[in-house]
């Protein structure tokens, strides 16, 4: 009974309800603008809400977080610029849909599925938080490394054309991610003695350049082409559509919660893994992946919103942040006089349930705000190219600058934009580059941690993999996925099943 009361605290005070609503609304737009991140918004809010009570402050932050993760999909679908790293996979099928005049439908499905994923994440947080956090803690460095290898193997599903070109792009991304002072030893890597390289290359700048600027350059080629008329009927997906995607969305939500709950991985990796999962389990999509498949929207969007609930799991149960945003929220709780840590659930269970309630409320607001105004948004795609191209460039430059308030990032962004344009031109996929940058450090740091822990002995390292059930499962998955992507396997499969068929 007290639990229910704590969940409903949001509704008993109109002020809190309003703040969650305002936060969600603002979050959607912060998320939609590339370069403005939820992490940034929440850290600014810490100072801004300093003199407030803890509940209103948390309400606003929760709203922004939930809205922001969803908002990233907007610009991904409409302009092919993911507003946030977690929306990269969304762009891959969302933008082709917009180009076919189905932007409204794409946003509709995205919104409903984000709501669904968010809901699953919150439910797991509410019902199973202690179990999930215990599971998340069992991940050793070698498991994180195997997870990163598993992620790298997604290159196959992110490259539509040649696998070799995909592997090249992925390796290039890993190299970009390694630039700068190595955080473990502070040794300089790929800096060529330039001071500006020491801090590394901002991954957001790479992302905005590769997607945004290269898109603008691409469109320059046919400036006078008529833009596609958008169909604006059937924006809210039918019940039948939702039912059809239910099994897939449950699976991808599960991926989202687990990846979100792991300290060290977040919504971006969850969304990419979910996209890959969808591609693997969907045998006959109505539209091929990469050309505007609905499944390609459902999977990443359920996963990244489910990761929100997931990220709160270690934060609320152990005081360990599940991602960058929850790390700042821990700081906020601390400033407001609470002691975020394992005892929070015991000493102040109301706080836990209040956050669950605020998340639920924010999720509903997200659905409402997301589904209203879609018609106006789809007009963006209908605008003439001569307006859209400068708009994309402007948005990219502002976004590139906003990441660190640094003009250097804008140069990086423009440079990678031009480079990305040529990559597209010669048929190199851009997705794997971003994947490589995201996973570079996860792979590199954890591989070194794992092997250092075993006294740099490969034998002991493999012994560790074989004796730990979790590592073994991950290792076998890596092997299976790897083998299934090699030409050898395809030919073997053809021979075996080909015979059976005839």
């Amino acid at each position: 009974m007290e639990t229910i009361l704590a969940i409903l605290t949001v509704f008993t005070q109109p002020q809190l309800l309003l703040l969650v609503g305002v936060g969600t609304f603002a979050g959607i737009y912060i998320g939609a603008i590339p370069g403005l991140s939820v992490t940034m918004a929440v850290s600014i809010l810490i100072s801004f809400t300093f003199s407030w009570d803890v509940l209103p402050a948390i309400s606003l932050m929760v709203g922004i977080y939930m809205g922001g993760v969803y908002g990233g999909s907007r610009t991904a679908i409409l302009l092919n610029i993911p507003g946030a790293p977690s929306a990269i996979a969304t762009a891959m099928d969302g933008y082709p849909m917009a180009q076919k005049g189905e932007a409204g439908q794409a946003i509709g499905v995205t919104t409903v599925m984000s709501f669904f994923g968010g809901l699953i994440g919150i439910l797991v947080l509410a019902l199973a938080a202690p179990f999930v956090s215990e599971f998340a803690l069992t991940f050793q460095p070698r498991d994180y490394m195997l997870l990163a290898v598993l992620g790298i193997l997604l290159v196959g599903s992110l490259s539509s054309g040649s696998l070799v070109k995909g592997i090249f792009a992925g390796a290039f991304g890993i190299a970009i991610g390694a630039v700068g002072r190595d955080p473990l030893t502070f040794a300089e890597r790929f800096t060529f003695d330039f001071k500006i390289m020491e801090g590394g290359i901002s991954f957001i700048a790479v992302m905005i350049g590769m997607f945004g600027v290269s898109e603008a350059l691409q469109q320059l080629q046919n400036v006078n082409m008529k833009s596609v008329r958008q169909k604006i009927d059937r924006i809210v997906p039918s019940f039948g559509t939702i039912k059809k995607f239910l099994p897939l969305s449950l699976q991808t939500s599960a991926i989202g919660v687990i990846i979100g709950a792991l300290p060290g991985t977040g919504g971006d990796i969850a969304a990419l893994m979910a996209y890959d999962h969808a591609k693997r389990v969907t045998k006959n999509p109505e539209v091929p992946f990469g050309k505007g498949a609905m499944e390609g929207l459902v999977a990443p969007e359920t996963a990244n919103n489910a990761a929100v609930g997931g990220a709160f799991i270690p934060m609320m149960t152990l005081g360990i942040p599940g991602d960058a945003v929850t790390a700042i929220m821990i700081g906020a709780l601390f400033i407001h006089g609470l002691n975020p840590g394992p005892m929070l659930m015991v000493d102040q269970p109301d706080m836990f349930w209040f956050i669950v309630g605020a998340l639920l409320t924010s999720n509903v607001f997200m659905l409402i705000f997301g589904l209203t105004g879609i018609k106006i948004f789809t007009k963006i795609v209908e605008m003439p190219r001569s307006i859209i191209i400068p708009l994309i460039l402007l948005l990219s430059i502002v976004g590139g600058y906003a990441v660190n308030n640094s003009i250097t990032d804008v140069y990086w962004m423009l440079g990678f934009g031009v480079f990305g344009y040529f990559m597209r031109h010669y048929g190199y996929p851009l997705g794997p580059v971003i994947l490589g940058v995201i996973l570079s450090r996860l792979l590199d740091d954890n591989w070194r941690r794992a092997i250092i822990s075993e006294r740099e002995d490969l034998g002991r390292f493999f012994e560790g993999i074989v004796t730990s059930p979790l590592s073994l499962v991950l290792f076998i998955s890596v092997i299976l996925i790897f083998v299934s992507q090699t030409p050898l396997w395809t030919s073997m499969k053809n021979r075996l099943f080909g015979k059976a068929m005839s």
Partner: protein
Amino acid sequence: MSRKLIGAIVALGLSATFATAQNYPAKEIQGIIQWGAGGSTDTVMRSVTPHAEEALGGTVVMQNMTGAVGAIALNYVLDAEADGYTVLMGAENPLLYKIMGLGDEDYSAFTPINLLARGTPLLVANIDAPFDDYAGMLAYIAENPGELKVGATGPGGLPSVITAMMNTVEGELDVIAVPYDGDGPALTALQGGAIDVMPAVLGAAIEGVRAGNMKPILVFDTETNATLPDVQIATDANAGYETYLPWGPFFGVFVKNGTPDDVVAALTVAYAKGAENEEFVSLMDGRGFTMMNISGQEATEFLTKWQQGTAWLLDDAGLTKASPEEFGIARPGE
């Protein structure tokens, strides 16, 4: 409208030409935080600054600028005008940049406004570790050479200093140092069993200790800690630690050398008031930080002593890129 604009231009011009206490602050002050959002430095700065703002009658806009162990933020403030409108909010790390080969500048190019507080290092162990105290740990290391995994955060970080201290006092300990990005991720790994022990700042580990998720082994201080009165202190375990303790990371607010004296004075008064605020003090106590709230000559002396002690400790342990001698850092006591 146009009158407002003229007013703004005049104000801007004034602030640029006479940065005096009468009109300081005439615009927003930029506070550059060396470390990421949610970390200890960030939290401390974001909790004290609103109180200092009140005393100052101005606004401090805080921004996290991470990278290269805080060197990016330090260089950013050094590149800005010495007018008191760009303030560095940092931790102890810059004092080691020179000997670690991380940069050519340290706090000697800055005027300390306030050294707010220092942290006490605490050695914690995984809850299932096969020992419960410091002596037990040393015995375990002796029996199982090269097996104990100790968390680290890179050269110059707190764990590297504490490990160097232990190696100097107890003789070389044969352990594995596993590097992490910071004490947060390392303490997470400790709870998951990926590492066995971790030297961390008390504030970061205290909640885990209170909840019984990790074991406190040794407090690196010369006096019993009020937060953990039952845990052995280093100088009791081995008198050899007296040479190096008390030692701990600290948090401070700095402006570039050459900032007008009245501006320094205004900021110093404001942050001293902010650091006296009851809410802030109780917050720091709760996290196990020791309040310092020192400025001026006292702060400069503290910085010099800290740098000498730590630099030579790391140099003797063979962890530095360049000898402290090269930068005129004298051996403590010389």
